[in-house]
């Protein structure tokens, strides 16, 4: 679905923010891109819908070279959800916000009406349909930003730091939306440094450091490699840390979730 071929990118022509990035994301995969502040995560994400184009190398989305497509064209395939919903929302009403892209893509008006109603109900926003997006709370605005992208049904959904400023309950809700998207066969790419969120929701992880891909593999492989994470400014999930503490006592180190930790304890200690 998405392919980066030896991608280099520079904002100023002097320093490369992405260096020789090659990766492949298959249709239906849920991939988390992790890395410390300034690693190039957001820059990578902006290549997906052509907001940025590679300085060298190529990015292919659905087989098409992004340098030969407009942002409008690519946006139909890739919906990008910004970190700060205020940078994305602009319409007079919640309804118009969601309808905007659909109108732009020239859908017939009855389809638009159905789609907008469907996503607003899905995201518990229907009662606000005539309100201004700016009257909504932070959490609601975030949901609206997601809803307005999902309304036009892009094949790829790209999230930039979706958990920042979200409390526990909101993070859980976000996790549920991601599950829903997975069941619809969508391809999901998320940039984040929230390791617990990755452990709970993603199967594949790309670790970026100073613009380079330093690891790419299953979430289990990457997130339970404590020294690799620490070397690149990240921390392993808390229960992985526990597994390392216990590894001298016959515990496996590749533990990510509560259920796995619980079972390992039962099994190893025979209690």
């Amino acid at each position, binding site marked *: 679905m998405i392919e980066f071929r030896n991608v280099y990118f520079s904002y100023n022509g002097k320093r490369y923010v992405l260096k020789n990035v090659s990766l492949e994301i298959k249709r239906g995969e849920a991939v988390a891109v992790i890395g*410390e502040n300034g690693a190039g995560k957001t820059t990578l994400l902006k290549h997906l819908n052509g907001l940025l184009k590679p300085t060298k190398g190529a990015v292919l989305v659905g087989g098409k070279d992004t340098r030969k497509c407009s942002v409008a064209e690519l946006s139909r395939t890739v919906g990008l959800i910004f970190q700060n919903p205020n940078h994305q929302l602009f319409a007079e009403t919640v309804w118009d916000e969601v309808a905007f892209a659909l109108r732009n893509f020239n859908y017939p008006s009855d389809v638009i009406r159905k789609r907008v109603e469907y996503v607003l109900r899905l995201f518990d926003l229907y009662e606000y349909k005539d309100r201004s997006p700016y009257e909504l709370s932070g*959490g609601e605005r975030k949901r609206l930003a997601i809803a307005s992208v999902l309304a036009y049904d892009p094949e790829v959904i790209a999230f930039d730091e979706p958990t920042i400023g979200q*409390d526990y309950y*909101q993070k859980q809700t976000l996790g549920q939306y991601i599950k829903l998207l997975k069941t619809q066969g969508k391809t999901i790419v998320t940039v984040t440094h929230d390791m617990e969120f990755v452990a709970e929701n993603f199967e594949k992880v790309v670790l970026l450091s100073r613009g380079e891909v330093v690891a790419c593999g299953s979430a289990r492989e990457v997130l339970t490699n404590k020294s690799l994470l620490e070397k690149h*400014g*990240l921390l392993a999930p808390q229960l992985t840390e526990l597994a390392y503490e216990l590894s001298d*006592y016959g515990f496996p180190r590749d533990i990510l979730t*509560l259920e796995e930790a*619980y079972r390992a304890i039962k099994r190893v200690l025979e209690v």
Partner: protein
Amino acid sequence: MAIIEFERVSFTYRGLKRPAIKDVDLRIEKGEYVVITGPTGCGKSTLLRCINGLIPHFYEGDFKGNVYVDGLNTREHQVFELATRAGLVFQDPESQIFCLTVESELAFGPENLGLPPDEIGRRIAESAELTEVSGILDRLTYELSGGEKQRVAIAAVLALKPSILVLDEPTSNIDPKGTLRILEVVRRLNQVYGTTVVIVEHKLELVSLHADRMVLMKEGEIVEDGSPRKVLTSETALNMGIGIPKVVQLYLRLKKEHRLSDKVPLSPREMKEVVLSLRGRGEK
């Protein structure tokens, strides 16, 4: 008198019907490290704004009750007087930092207190050292990374030598390593210099280890108040769905089936001891 006292404090922002905080009674003793947590919109930031006088002096609305900071009633003293006692570090460092260089940012507060130049120099050096920004004093503030900006924002507040440090989600945009570094700075100020700390933070798995006390808020009211070990395992916390650290969740799950020490583990290392205490038991 405690260093911070809230007496039945309620505040309703102008134009809103529901109070942001409601009948809050809270006493914080000198030298305590208190973490305030709760879901978005529960009144955490409003509570912090009452400590340095932004409420009632800057934000308009209906303010009831009294807040005393270092013995001063915030109704009777202006923000600049309170600022030398309770320094507030904002959630977003970009809304706090406004000088061109790091050094001038740190100098701004002390200059406005009318301090002599050698004292200003001393304060810049001290607060920069504490927050590990001594090496970037001549850098331009807009070129700093998120973590650096956050530490500069803390340093600028420290230069006022407040006896109370108030922080509103100081690590929200920072990667895990940068977060640890900032929380370590805060911990050192508390332990070495006896600074009273009041912090709003969602990363409970990190901050619980440093805090003496955790205050849990819901819909403008304080619903739990006690040691982190007690609050994180309270019925209220479990029912509310705050981000209870995974080791605490694991402990609670095992405790349903096994007799475990009453000391709730807060870190992987503490949890390791709990797990090892189960060895050779084989009970069900």
